[in-house]
């Protein structure tokens, strides 16, 4: 019996629950079926099966505060911003877990002609929806800095597609 494999599998399950960014995320561990290197020579480590936890970002991770009050003019007015520090985890077997954080700021108007007043809760809901949508497109093997830069730019690109008139911004 391969106790190391069993122990590793149990740890992966624990890591998914403990570091998944909240409740058990949907589709928690997506193993990338990387077969062992057939050319691996004796003494070299074979490439292990790896996985990434797809975080399920919560609304509380986007605490919006007012930056500019609404002046009532135009199709949209006012400005609110949330500073987020989003956590990502990549698990490699047998037992390696890499966690990193992507700091970013999301900014959204306070009022919009088609949405009315956008409360901090509504802004957080949209931000989480965009973040959770983008994370599914990400390559978790990217170097962390490039991962975060890519994630930020994809969130910025996703907002005008998911919420066309909103005018949201995403910056580092």
């Amino acid at each position, binding site marked *: 019996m391969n106790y190391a494999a069993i122990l590793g599998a149990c740890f992966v399950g624990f890591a998914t629950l403990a570091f998944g960014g909240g409740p058990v995320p949907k589709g928690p561990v997506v193993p990338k079926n990387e077969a062992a290197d057939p050319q691996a020579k004796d003494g070299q480590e074979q490439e292990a099966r790896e996985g990434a936890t797809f975080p399920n970002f919560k609304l509380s991770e986007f605490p919006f505060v007012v*930056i*500019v009050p609404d002046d009532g*003019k*135009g*199709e*949209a*007015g*006012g*400005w609110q*911003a949330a500073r987020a520090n989003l956590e990502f985890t990549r698990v490699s077997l047998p037992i390696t877990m890499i966690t990193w*954080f*992507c*700091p970013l*700021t999301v*900014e959204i*108007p306070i009022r919009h*002609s*088609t*949405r009315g007043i956008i409360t901090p809760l509504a802004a957080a809901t949209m931000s989480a929806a965009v973040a959770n*949508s983008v994370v*599914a*497109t*990400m*390559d978790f093997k990217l170097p*962390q*800095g*490039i991962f*975060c*830069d*890519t994630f930020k*730019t*994809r969130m*910025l*690109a*996703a907002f*005008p*597609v998911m*919420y*066309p*008139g909103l*005018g949201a*911004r995403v*910056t*580092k």
Partner: protein
Amino acid sequence: MTKVMQSELLELIYQHYPRGMLALSRVHVPIGELYYDDTEEHVRLIVAAARGRREYAKWSTMLDGLYARFSVQNESLHLWSGGNDPAYSARIYRPKDSENVQPEQVRASLSFHVSLLGPYYGIHDAGEPDEITQAVAKEIESTYPGYCTIPPDIGNTVVPDVDDAGAPMGEATIYTCLFSRVWTWVVPPPLPIAK
């Protein structure tokens, strides 16, 4: 109107965007290595954005004149949260923009921008030609005398070696570097597919 040369625009862009450098967050840059925000180029962009905030009243007054005539959405408030936009931006909704579309999915068909990096302005019109484009151009040119437009064959030129803070390296254009990523909102590029 002064003829705009691509070379002068590229020179202006490279003064404000460091070449070949990703705009990574500071936490991902080892101590001792050059950080994007500390480059001379980015500091020039910060200075330009600060000037945009100091002179914001001129832009705001111009918008006040347009609010009465068109459905205008100011996209420049990002400057007030410390954003380093290279331009003032705004969008205009036409009545046709909301035809056969859910209210939350309405997209403005026109955006206009006044660059903070040089004497250029841009109007990105994805709708049917009407009087709005000329009216906006007239307002901009009277508020910012001497500013000129950039023809599409130059403006859509890719600047492959700068990070315009809105797209992966290699996707910035002269338009997005001078007018910000808001330029692309009238016709957003396709999104990456989920893995």
